[in-house]
């Protein structure tokens, strides 16, 4: 693989001519181009706690990677994850494995000042079943909202719906689906 210094000019050249956002591409019906351009970039931060979530992520990562083909996935090594959390974000201790999805459309348009993606704190889930459900929900969300025009509104709508469904389950004495714990 060539060094980054040789690769990046080519990438920059390909990106410079103001690419259409996914929303604009979706509106113009340019679906092939939409699929070829990454909408999200995904980061995996995992300090390596001996937890159910760590095990589930390790066992299902290949599938996650296959499902997210086209979106770059960056996996921080154990050392980098520990250093990253320890140095800057102590409140993330114990919440890892963390999967952060950045919306590249929004990052291009408005940077990091406003909404620009979401984070799944898998480490907060205690059982393998909970972690697996959350991981599947994550993949489903990315797949179904790839061409979303207003991702923030859709995330908030989904969270609200989960909350309402959870409330109904409690009222009806159903077994909670364990996504929220």
């Amino acid at each position, binding site marked *: 693989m060539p060094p980054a210094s040789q690769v990046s000019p080519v990438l920059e050249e390909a990106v410079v001519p103001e690419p259409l956002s996914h929303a604009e591409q979706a509106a113009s019906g340019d679906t092939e181009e939409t699929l070829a351009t990454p909408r999200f970039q995904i980061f995996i931060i995992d300090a390596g706690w001996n937890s159910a979530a760590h095990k589930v992520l390790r066992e299902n990562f290949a599938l996650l990677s296959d499902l997210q083909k086209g979106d770059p996935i960056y996996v921080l090594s154990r050392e980098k994850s520990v250093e990253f959390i320890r140095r800057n974000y102590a409140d993330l201790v114990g919440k890892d494995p963390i999967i952060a999805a950045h919306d590249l459309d929004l990052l291009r348009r408005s940077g*990091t000042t406003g909404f620009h993606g*979401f984070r799944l704190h898998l480490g907060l889930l205690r059982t393998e079943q909970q972690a697996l459900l959350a991981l599947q929900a994550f993949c489903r969300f990315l797949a179904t909202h790839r061409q979303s025009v207003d991702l923030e509104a859709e995330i908030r709508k989904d*969270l609200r719906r989960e*909350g309402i469904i959870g409330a109904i389950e409690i009222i009806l004495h159903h077994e909670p689906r364990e996504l929220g714990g």
Partner: protein
Amino acid sequence: MPETWSEYFTIFMSALAVGYLVYEIDRRRRKLHDIWDVLGGEDAELTEGLVSMVRNGELRPYTGGALA
């Protein structure tokens, strides 16, 4: 107005049940928001940290193989 102790007891138990429901729904809502965190302006530094790792070449896209 309730007239017997059993009526008072029923009202008390109903209030407890409603209180428990409100508490449980709020607890689940908070947990859900802890697990699924929306990235906003306050997370800019964290996002920049990750993006700069990519920019500096410290991180490269995953291309295959198992996780450590």
